[in-house]
């Protein structure tokens, strides 16, 4: 909590923990780091969460570095510990992709692997005690620091929009624009009578359009909501007297291990399902 705001009130503490480090174009201050949520809100769209980007890209690099190292030393003989670990995850992802996605694609499996490991790592940041890194950052002059990228709706939306873009791309290239349009326009209502069918088309377009748009939104909000809620509970627990904190934070952290893995898995599975849907006409 910034000393400038004075006093360590509980509301202030929570607000401080939920505020990203925003760098953007403030109407009065120009390009600067926002101090407080009002300044951040005033920056509008042209602002970036430095902390989210830093942790997100950092964790992505850790993922890539670790897996690349294993991939470079990959041998068909007796695998080392790292290779074993990486193979375990790769096989897990590969099995899930094979079971759900029946098309032929070089993209879907690596996409699923990236999502699973990356989202898992981002969620994993939730298990670091809530005050450690923000406090260290504050001492070194950084006013805000949110270390769990998946509690930032921008991050989860960025991921789901990537998936959405791929869905649209594959729908258009594999089914063709006409096939894709037919899927949107002639479902779920159809009729052999051409006149009735024509009447159904706008209804279908509306329903299917909403269903299509809902996919990336729900994908993003599900992950964001779960992680945000979990983070908030950790922050609330941190408000207790320090002698009592462990009685709640330990069980919640243990439970959260399940949540973070599950959410990463769900994000991956839904991505595979969406990819599968856009690859096959039904």
């Amino acid at each position, binding site marked *: 909590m910034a000393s400038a705001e004075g006093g360590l009130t509980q509301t202030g503490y929570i607000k401080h923990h939920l505020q990203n480090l925003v760098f953007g174009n403030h109407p009065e201050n120009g390009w600067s780091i926002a101090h407080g949520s009002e300044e951040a809100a005033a920056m509008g769209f042209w*602002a970036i969460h430095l902390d989210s980007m830093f942790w*997100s890209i950092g964790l992505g690099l850790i993922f890539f570095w670790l897996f690349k190292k294993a991939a470079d030393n990959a041998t068909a003989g007796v695998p080392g510990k790292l290779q074993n670990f990486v193979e375990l995850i790769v096989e897990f992802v590969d099995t899930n992709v094979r079971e759900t996605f029946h098309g032929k694609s070089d993209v879907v499996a690596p996409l699923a692997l990236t999502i699973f490991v990356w989202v898992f790592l981002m969620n994993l940041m939730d298990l670091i005690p809530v005050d450690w890194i923000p406090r260290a950052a504050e001492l070194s002059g950084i006013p805000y620091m949110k270390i769990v990228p998946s509690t930032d*709706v921008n991050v989860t939306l960025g991921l789901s929009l990537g998936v959405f873009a791929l869905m649209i791309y594959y729908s258009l290239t594999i089914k063709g624009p006409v096939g894709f349009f037919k899927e949107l326009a002639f479902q779920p209502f159809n009729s052999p009578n051409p006149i009735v069918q024509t009447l159904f088309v706008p209804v279908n377009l509306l329903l299917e359009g909403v269903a299509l748009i809902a996919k990336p939104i729900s994908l993003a909000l599900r992950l964001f909501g779960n992680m945000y809620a979990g983070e908030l509970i950790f922050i609330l627990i941190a408000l207790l007297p320090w002698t009592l904190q462990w009685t709640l934070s330990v069980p919640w952290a243990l439970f959260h291990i399940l949540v973070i893995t599950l959410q990463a898995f769900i994000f991956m599975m839904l991505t595979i399902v969406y990819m599968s849907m856009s690859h096959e006409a039904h």
Partner: protein
Amino acid sequence: MNINLTMLGQLISFAIFVFLCMKYVWPPVMAALRERQDKIAQSLADAEQGAQRREEAEQEVNAMLQDAKAQAAEIVAQAQKRSNEIVEESKNTARKEGERLMASAQADIEQEVVSAREALRKQVSSIAVQGAGKILGTEVNADAHAKVLDDLVGQL
């Protein structure tokens, strides 16, 4: 909780990481996995083949063993038969030899008896002549009483 540039930043880094994963991580790991799978499948097949070969060899050995046993039994049977024959043969020979010896002994004995009888006959006639001469007190002419003497000798 504003939607801002972070979303685009995340989208771009997402695309880059997926690309990197697709290019540098997935193919080598999968290749290693496939290769190991093939290797394991190959070794399993080899092991199976080895087991099959061993079984075949075992069968062959068993057949050979049985053959050898049969041959040995045959040889033993032949030997037994041959020894029986030899024993039988030598028994026969021995019996014949014994019979022959006995026959010749019998013949010898009969010869002795005949010659002894002959000698007795001769002595009987001379003893009879001498006895008669003593009794009569005269010389008895053996030739004159040859018929009586021959009868006497013939009674012996």
